């Protein structure tokens, strides 16, 4: 479904991604593991078109999408949950959801009403401003917002960051629930969490993929664990 071929991405002069390649098949949850600054978020942003790569190719659903702006990616079925959550702070929960639904213009399972039923916590907070939610609530809102594009694939960038363990458990349930319908690429520092919900994983370090394998392979490889993941 998604194929990233040897992309090189820069921030100004600094060469952040130095040839990242990865693949995600339909129905999979694939995690991208690595430390802060290893290039996880940049990979996600490159795929989404927020920071287009200077070299390399990205194929989504069989077509090349390298360099397409984010809104065109959304139209093709890609949704993105950014690392720092980024709800629209002065829009209410409901407006945050509405805007996403209107903007994406993709019909499918999810509607604003439907999603509020699935996330009862958001239903209770529907008139609250996005900026007045707690971190966990914001995280749920942003995932719900992404789902309203009725995506075929979801990019989840560090959903656990800064969340209390109880919320992380909640999040785990949500991901396990939606992965039945949506293909997911998950960037995480929290390897135990990521490996609980993923089928396969890549380890990224210094802008390069250092290791890839199934969940079992990653769990079994001690060198990877101690060297890259600090488990």
């Amino acid at each position, binding site marked *: 479904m998604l194929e990233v071929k040897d992309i090189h991405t820069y921030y100004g*002069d600094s060469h952040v991604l130095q040839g990242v390649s990865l693949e995600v098949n339909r129905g999979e949850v694939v995690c991208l593991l690595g430390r802060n*600054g290893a290039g996880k978020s940049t990979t996600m942003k490159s795929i989404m078109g927020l920071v287009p790569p200077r070299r390399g190719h990205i194929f989504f659903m069989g077509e090349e999408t390298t360099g397409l702006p984010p809104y065109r990616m959304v139209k093709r079925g890609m949704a993105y949950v950014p690392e720092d959550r980024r709800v629209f702070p002065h829009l209410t929960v409901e407006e945050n959801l509405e805007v996403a639904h209107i903007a994406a213009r993709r019909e499918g399972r999810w509607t604003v009403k439907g999603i509020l039923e699935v996330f009862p916590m958001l239903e209770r907070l529907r008139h609250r401003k996005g900026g007045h939610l707690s971190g966990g609530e914001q995280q749920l809102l942003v995932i719900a917002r992404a789902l309203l594009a009725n995506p075929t694939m979801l990019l989840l960038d560090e959903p656990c960051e800064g969340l209390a363990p109880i919320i992380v458990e909640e999040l785990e349930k949500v991901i396990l629930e939606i992965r039945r319908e949506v293909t997911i690429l998950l960037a995480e520092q929290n390897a*135990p969490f990521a490996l609980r919900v993923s089928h396969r994983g890549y380890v990224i370090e210094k802008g390069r993929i250092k290791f890839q394998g199934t969940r079992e392979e990653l769990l079994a490889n001690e060198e990877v664990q101690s060297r890259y993941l600090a488990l």
Partner: protein
Amino acid sequence: MEDRTILSVENLSKAFGKFYAIKDVTLQVPKGEITALIGPNGAGKTTFYNVVTGKYKPTTGRIVFEGREITGLPPHKTARLGLGRSFQITNIFLENTVEENILAALVAYHGRGLSLFRGLNAYRDLKEEAHEILEMLGLADRAREVAKNLAYGDKRLVEIGIAMAGHPKLIMLDEPTAGMTPEETDRMVAMIQGLFQETGITFFLTEHDMKVVFSIAHRILVLHQGSLLAQGSPEEIRNNPRVREAYLGGSLDA
């Protein structure tokens, strides 16, 4: 006790609206040691830095540095008293050269900022000192490079260099190894340990990487949801069940 403590914080709170980023934190930082403050993202570490160094005014509480109350003093005053800090997000003067980055801090420390009519090049002593600092950081050959062209790890070193150039009595590092590769992290840890042994400055740091924390800190403080959860020696923290439960999870087993 009194003279062993360089920084003492009493009942410190900082609220943003209704949300308390720091709640009633009391702690002491002993002189001549490396103290680490740990806690999950969002625990309030950076807010703690910002309140202590004067970027934010605390909502309540008292901060005493070297026996002198500094509560609410602005950053330029706390810096002049000897409180140096580095930032989590690289925070240097990107369009200036590496040397100028360090020189700016030296100019400030030596009180030469208001010298208008003598060229910078005439200040041999400052240049030499800047050179020494760059040498110490291993950046001497990059002195004339514009800072924005440095590699990420080197930018982080410049960050430390700016803080060191202020001749601090207490240096507060905010995640010095954030985003670094293992090699860069090792280099940074060695650098911190080297600086500590050479200068005897008191270090205070926050850090994500538990290996780093447990290898260099003499004392560890754990912040959780804005409150101090525990403090003690690395051994005590390692074995504290509340800490393990709330934050560390499995990550201490390495």
